[in-house]
Protein backbone atom coordinates (compact mmCIF):
# COMPACT_ATOMS: atom_id res chain seq x y z
CA UNK A 1 0.00 0.00 0.00
CA UNK A 2 1.37 3.34 -1.02
CA UNK A 3 0.86 5.85 1.73
CA UNK A 4 0.60 9.41 0.55
CA UNK A 5 3.53 11.14 2.16
CA UNK A 6 3.30 14.44 0.34
CA UNK A 7 5.34 17.15 1.92
CA UNK A 8 3.31 19.25 4.31
CA UNK A 9 3.33 23.00 4.09
CA UNK A 10 5.21 24.90 6.78
CA UNK A 11 3.39 27.40 8.98
CA UNK A 12 5.38 30.12 7.27
CA UNK A 13 4.23 29.02 3.82
CA UNK A 14 0.64 28.71 4.99
CA UNK A 15 0.57 32.30 6.28
CA UNK A 16 2.18 33.39 3.05
CA UNK A 17 -0.62 31.76 1.07
CA UNK A 18 -3.21 33.40 3.31
CA UNK A 19 -1.62 36.85 3.23
CA UNK A 20 -1.43 36.65 -0.56
CA UNK A 21 -5.22 36.59 -0.51
CA UNK A 22 -5.63 39.50 1.91
CA UNK A 23 -6.23 43.04 0.65
CA UNK A 24 -3.19 45.30 0.28
CA UNK A 25 -4.21 47.56 3.18
CA UNK A 26 -4.35 44.62 5.57
CA UNK A 27 -1.09 43.21 4.29
CA UNK A 28 0.56 46.57 4.97
CA UNK A 29 -0.70 46.43 8.56
CA UNK A 30 0.47 42.84 8.88
CA UNK A 31 4.11 43.86 9.16
CA UNK A 32 3.34 44.99 12.72
CA UNK A 33 1.93 41.65 13.87
CA UNK A 34 4.98 39.51 14.55
CA UNK A 35 8.49 38.91 13.26
CA UNK A 36 7.22 35.96 11.23
CA UNK A 37 4.54 38.01 9.48
CA UNK A 38 6.98 40.86 9.09
CA UNK A 39 9.39 38.54 7.34
CA UNK A 40 6.68 37.28 4.99
CA UNK A 41 5.26 40.62 3.88
CA UNK A 42 8.64 42.33 3.55
CA UNK A 43 9.90 39.67 1.19
CA UNK A 44 10.15 41.27 -2.29
CA UNK A 45 9.00 38.02 -3.91
CA UNK A 46 5.84 38.11 -1.79
CA UNK A 47 5.21 41.74 -2.66
CA UNK A 48 5.53 41.02 -6.35
CA UNK A 49 3.15 38.03 -6.14
CA UNK A 50 0.68 39.99 -4.06
CA UNK A 51 0.75 42.89 -6.46
CA UNK A 52 0.25 40.59 -9.47
CA UNK A 53 -2.69 38.93 -7.81
CA UNK A 54 -4.44 42.07 -6.65
CA UNK A 55 -3.67 44.53 -9.41
CA UNK A 56 -6.63 43.41 -11.46
CA UNK A 57 -8.62 46.10 -13.18
CA UNK A 58 -12.14 46.33 -11.90
CA UNK A 59 -14.92 48.79 -12.44
CA UNK A 60 -14.57 50.00 -8.86
CA UNK A 61 -10.92 50.80 -9.16
CA UNK A 62 -9.59 54.27 -9.65
CA UNK A 63 -6.77 54.12 -12.15
CA UNK A 64 -3.45 55.66 -11.25
CA UNK A 65 -1.85 55.74 -14.66
CA UNK A 66 -2.61 58.39 -17.18
CA UNK A 67 -2.65 58.21 -20.90
CA UNK A 68 -2.06 61.58 -22.47
CA UNK A 69 -3.67 62.05 -25.83
CA UNK A 70 -2.79 65.05 -27.89
CA UNK A 71 -4.94 65.94 -30.84
CA UNK A 72 -4.07 68.55 -33.35
CA UNK A 73 -7.03 70.79 -34.05
CA UNK A 74 -6.56 73.62 -36.47
CA UNK A 75 -2.91 73.74 -35.63
CA UNK A 76 -3.57 73.84 -31.92
CA UNK A 77 -2.78 70.97 -29.70
CA UNK A 78 -5.58 69.74 -27.49
CA UNK A 79 -4.44 67.37 -24.82
CA UNK A 80 -6.67 65.06 -22.91
CA UNK A 81 -5.59 63.05 -19.95
CA UNK A 82 -7.17 59.65 -19.77
CA UNK A 83 -6.86 57.39 -16.75
CA UNK A 84 -5.45 54.04 -17.86
CA UNK A 85 -6.72 51.06 -15.96
CA UNK A 86 -3.61 49.24 -14.99
CA UNK A 87 -3.40 49.55 -11.23
CA UNK A 88 -5.65 49.34 -8.22
CA UNK A 89 -7.00 52.10 -6.05
CA UNK A 90 -4.65 54.71 -4.70
CA UNK A 91 -7.19 57.23 -3.63
CA UNK A 92 -10.65 56.84 -2.22
CA UNK A 93 -11.99 59.60 -4.39
CA UNK A 94 -13.27 58.67 -7.80
CA UNK A 95 -11.23 60.48 -10.38
CA UNK A 96 -12.94 62.05 -13.36
CA UNK A 97 -12.75 59.94 -16.48
CA UNK A 98 -11.30 62.80 -18.44
CA UNK A 99 -9.38 65.85 -17.62
CA UNK A 100 -8.46 68.40 -20.20
CA UNK A 101 -5.14 69.74 -19.08
CA UNK A 102 -4.24 71.93 -21.98
CA UNK A 103 -6.74 72.72 -24.61
CA UNK A 104 -4.99 75.28 -26.69
CA UNK A 105 -6.72 78.59 -26.53
CA UNK A 106 -10.35 77.97 -27.18
CA UNK A 107 -11.39 74.33 -27.15
CA UNK A 108 -13.15 72.97 -24.14
CA UNK A 109 -15.31 70.03 -23.25
CA UNK A 110 -18.82 70.89 -24.38
CA UNK A 111 -20.75 67.71 -23.73
CA UNK A 112 -20.39 64.14 -22.61
CA UNK A 113 -22.72 61.32 -23.61
CA UNK A 114 -22.25 57.55 -23.34
CA UNK A 115 -18.50 57.82 -23.39
CA UNK A 116 -18.47 60.30 -26.26
CA UNK A 117 -16.80 63.57 -25.49
CA UNK A 118 -17.50 66.61 -27.49
CA UNK A 119 -14.95 69.40 -27.64
CA UNK A 120 -16.11 72.69 -28.99
CA UNK A 121 -14.83 76.17 -29.39
CA UNK A 122 -16.73 79.47 -29.39
CA UNK A 123 -14.51 80.91 -32.01
CA UNK A 124 -14.30 77.99 -34.42
CA UNK A 125 -16.86 76.07 -36.42
CA UNK A 126 -15.29 72.65 -35.90
CA UNK A 127 -16.25 70.33 -33.07
CA UNK A 128 -14.26 67.31 -32.08
CA UNK A 129 -15.88 64.13 -30.85
CA UNK A 130 -13.75 61.72 -28.95
CA UNK A 131 -14.77 58.23 -27.94
CA UNK A 132 -12.96 55.97 -25.56
CA UNK A 133 -13.43 52.51 -24.24
CA UNK A 134 -11.67 50.53 -21.55
CA UNK A 135 -9.35 47.81 -22.77
CA UNK A 136 -6.82 45.60 -20.98
CA UNK A 137 -4.12 48.03 -22.06
CA UNK A 138 -5.86 51.07 -20.72
CA UNK A 139 -8.44 53.39 -22.19
CA UNK A 140 -8.17 53.30 -25.91
CA UNK A 141 -9.59 56.26 -27.67
CA UNK A 142 -10.89 56.87 -31.14
CA UNK A 143 -11.05 60.34 -32.54
CA UNK A 144 -14.35 60.32 -34.33
CA UNK A 145 -14.88 63.42 -36.32
CA UNK A 146 -14.31 67.03 -36.78
CA UNK A 147 -17.61 68.21 -38.10
CA UNK A 148 -19.46 71.44 -38.49
CA UNK A 149 -20.96 72.80 -35.37
CA UNK A 150 -24.66 73.46 -35.26
CA UNK A 151 -25.42 76.92 -34.04
Amino acid at each position, binding site marked *: *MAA*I*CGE*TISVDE*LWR*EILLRAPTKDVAR*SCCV*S*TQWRGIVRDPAFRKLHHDRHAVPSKDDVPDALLVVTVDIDGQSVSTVVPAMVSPVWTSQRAPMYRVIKNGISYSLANVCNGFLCFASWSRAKVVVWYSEPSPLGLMGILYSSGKRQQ
Partner: protein
Amino acid sequence: MATGSGAAAAAADAEEKESGSRMITLTSNEGKAFVVTEASARQSATIRSMVDDGGCVDKGFPLPNVDSKTLARVIQYCDEHGNKEAHTVDERAALAKFDKDFIAELDADKAFLYDVTMAANYLHIQGLFALTTQCIADTIKGKTPEEIRTAFGIEYDLTAQDEEEIKEEDTHA
Protein backbone atom coordinates in the same frame (compact mmCIF):
# COMPACT_ATOMS: atom_id res chain seq x y z
CA MET B 1 -15.43 4.20 -40.55
CA ALA B 2 -18.53 5.59 -38.91
CA THR B 3 -19.25 2.36 -37.06
CA GLY B 4 -15.57 2.11 -36.08
CA SER B 5 -15.50 5.52 -34.45
CA GLY B 6 -18.91 4.84 -32.94
CA ALA B 7 -17.63 1.65 -31.33
CA ALA B 8 -14.53 3.44 -30.09
CA ALA B 9 -16.65 6.16 -28.57
CA ALA B 10 -18.88 3.58 -26.92
CA ALA B 11 -15.81 1.81 -25.53
CA ALA B 12 -14.45 5.10 -24.20
CA ASP B 13 -17.82 5.85 -22.74
CA ALA B 14 -17.98 2.47 -21.03
CA GLU B 15 -14.48 2.97 -19.68
CA GLU B 16 -15.40 6.37 -18.36
CA LYS B 17 -18.50 4.95 -16.72
CA GLU B 18 -16.42 2.23 -15.18
CA SER B 19 -13.82 4.61 -13.80
CA GLY B 20 -16.63 6.89 -12.66
CA SER B 21 -18.18 4.12 -10.63
CA ARG B 22 -14.87 2.84 -9.26
CA MET B 23 -14.59 3.23 -5.53
CA ILE B 24 -11.44 4.29 -3.71
CA THR B 25 -10.62 3.76 -0.05
CA LEU B 26 -8.95 6.55 1.90
CA THR B 27 -7.70 5.71 5.37
CA SER B 28 -7.19 8.29 8.08
CA ASN B 29 -4.23 8.25 10.47
CA GLU B 30 -6.54 6.63 13.02
CA GLY B 31 -7.07 3.71 10.66
CA LYS B 32 -10.62 4.60 9.79
CA ALA B 33 -11.50 3.74 6.17
CA PHE B 34 -13.57 6.06 3.99
CA VAL B 35 -14.87 4.70 0.70
CA VAL B 36 -15.38 7.40 -1.90
CA THR B 37 -16.10 7.49 -5.62
CA GLU B 38 -13.13 7.94 -7.91
CA ALA B 39 -14.62 11.22 -9.13
CA SER B 40 -14.63 12.46 -5.56
CA ALA B 41 -11.08 11.28 -4.86
CA ARG B 42 -9.86 12.91 -8.08
CA GLN B 43 -10.53 16.32 -6.52
CA SER B 44 -7.19 15.67 -4.86
CA ALA B 45 -4.39 16.24 -7.37
CA THR B 46 -2.16 13.99 -5.28
CA ILE B 47 -4.55 11.04 -5.51
CA ARG B 48 -5.42 11.84 -9.12
CA SER B 49 -1.82 11.57 -10.25
CA MET B 50 -1.35 8.32 -8.33
CA VAL B 51 -4.49 6.83 -9.92
CA ASP B 52 -3.43 7.98 -13.38
CA ASP B 53 0.03 6.51 -12.88
CA GLY B 54 -1.69 3.16 -12.44
CA GLY B 55 -1.34 3.29 -8.68
CA CYS B 56 -2.88 0.72 -6.38
CA VAL B 57 -6.47 1.88 -6.60
CA ASP B 58 -7.78 -1.39 -5.17
CA LYS B 59 -5.59 -1.24 -2.10
CA GLY B 60 -6.59 2.28 -1.23
CA PHE B 61 -4.60 5.17 0.10
CA PRO B 62 -3.55 5.59 3.72
CA LEU B 63 -3.30 9.25 4.70
CA PRO B 64 -0.92 9.40 7.68
CA ASN B 65 -1.26 13.18 8.00
CA VAL B 66 -5.04 13.46 8.22
CA ASP B 67 -7.28 12.51 11.16
CA SER B 68 -10.78 11.06 10.75
CA LYS B 69 -12.67 14.22 11.65
CA THR B 70 -10.74 16.32 9.13
CA LEU B 71 -10.87 13.65 6.42
CA ALA B 72 -14.65 13.31 6.78
CA ARG B 73 -15.02 17.04 6.23
CA VAL B 74 -12.60 17.08 3.29
CA ILE B 75 -14.52 14.19 1.69
CA GLN B 76 -17.74 16.13 2.15
CA TYR B 77 -16.25 18.84 -0.06
CA CYS B 78 -14.82 16.38 -2.60
CA ASP B 79 -18.12 14.49 -2.90
CA GLU B 80 -19.98 17.66 -3.64
CA HIS B 81 -17.47 18.89 -6.21
CA GLY B 82 -16.52 15.52 -7.69
CA ASN B 83 -19.87 13.77 -7.94
CA LYS B 84 -22.00 16.67 -9.06
CA GLU B 85 -22.08 18.34 -12.43
CA ALA B 86 -21.33 22.03 -12.75
CA HIS B 87 -22.43 22.75 -16.30
CA THR B 88 -25.58 24.78 -15.94
CA VAL B 89 -26.00 28.08 -14.14
CA ASP B 90 -28.23 26.40 -11.56
CA GLU B 91 -25.70 23.65 -10.87
CA ARG B 92 -22.93 26.18 -10.44
CA ALA B 93 -25.11 28.27 -8.15
CA ALA B 94 -25.85 25.18 -6.06
CA LEU B 95 -22.11 24.47 -5.73
CA ALA B 96 -21.41 28.09 -4.82
CA LYS B 97 -24.07 27.89 -2.14
CA PHE B 98 -22.57 24.65 -0.87
CA ASP B 99 -19.14 26.34 -0.64
CA LYS B 100 -20.63 29.29 1.21
CA ASP B 101 -22.37 27.13 3.80
CA PHE B 102 -19.39 24.80 4.05
CA ILE B 103 -16.95 27.60 4.84
CA ALA B 104 -19.37 29.41 7.14
CA GLU B 105 -19.56 26.28 9.27
CA LEU B 106 -15.78 25.87 9.28
CA ASP B 107 -15.23 29.53 10.10
CA ALA B 108 -16.92 29.00 13.45
CA ASP B 109 -14.14 26.62 14.51
CA LYS B 110 -10.80 28.22 13.65
CA ALA B 111 -8.66 25.29 14.82
CA PHE B 112 -10.63 22.89 12.65
CA LEU B 113 -10.50 25.33 9.73
CA TYR B 114 -6.72 25.26 10.09
CA ASP B 115 -6.69 21.42 10.04
CA VAL B 116 -8.83 21.32 6.92
CA THR B 117 -6.55 23.88 5.24
CA MET B 118 -3.50 21.77 6.01
CA ALA B 119 -5.24 18.64 4.68
CA ALA B 120 -6.34 20.47 1.52
CA ASN B 121 -2.76 21.49 0.95
CA TYR B 122 -1.39 18.03 1.69
CA LEU B 123 -3.85 16.38 -0.72
CA HIS B 124 -3.58 19.24 -3.23
CA ILE B 125 -7.28 19.98 -3.38
CA GLN B 126 -6.97 23.36 -5.01
CA GLY B 127 -10.56 24.53 -4.70
CA LEU B 128 -10.78 23.67 -1.03
CA PHE B 129 -7.40 25.22 -0.26
CA ALA B 130 -8.40 28.45 -2.00
CA LEU B 131 -11.69 28.46 -0.10
CA THR B 132 -10.17 28.00 3.35
CA THR B 133 -7.18 30.31 2.91
CA GLN B 134 -9.47 33.02 1.52
CA CYS B 135 -11.69 32.58 4.58
CA ILE B 136 -8.70 33.09 6.90
CA ALA B 137 -7.56 36.08 4.82
CA ASP B 138 -11.04 37.58 5.23
CA THR B 139 -10.65 37.22 8.99
CA ILE B 140 -7.58 39.48 8.81
CA LYS B 141 -9.47 42.13 6.85
CA GLY B 142 -9.96 45.36 8.76
CA LYS B 143 -8.27 44.10 11.92
CA THR B 144 -5.55 45.93 13.81
CA PRO B 145 -2.29 44.04 14.41
CA GLU B 146 -3.38 43.59 18.03
CA GLU B 147 -6.72 42.09 16.98
CA ILE B 148 -4.96 39.79 14.52
CA ARG B 149 -2.64 38.55 17.26
CA THR B 150 -5.64 37.82 19.48
CA ALA B 151 -7.62 36.12 16.71
CA PHE B 152 -4.82 33.72 15.78
CA GLY B 153 -3.04 33.41 19.12
CA ILE B 154 0.14 34.99 17.82
CA GLU B 155 2.70 36.19 20.31
CA TYR B 156 4.06 39.72 20.10
CA ASP B 157 7.74 39.22 19.40
CA LEU B 158 8.82 42.33 17.52
CA THR B 159 12.18 43.63 18.60
CA ALA B 160 12.96 47.23 19.52
CA GLN B 161 14.70 47.50 16.16
CA ASP B 162 11.54 46.33 14.33
CA GLU B 163 9.49 48.90 16.21
CA GLU B 164 11.97 51.59 15.26
CA GLU B 165 11.70 50.57 11.60
CA ILE B 166 7.89 50.53 11.73
CA LYS B 167 7.90 54.04 13.18
CA GLU B 168 10.17 55.18 10.38
CA GLU B 169 7.98 53.51 7.73
CA ASP B 170 4.96 55.26 9.21
CA THR B 171 6.49 58.69 8.95
CA HIS B 172 7.37 58.05 5.31
CA ALA B 173 3.89 56.86 4.47
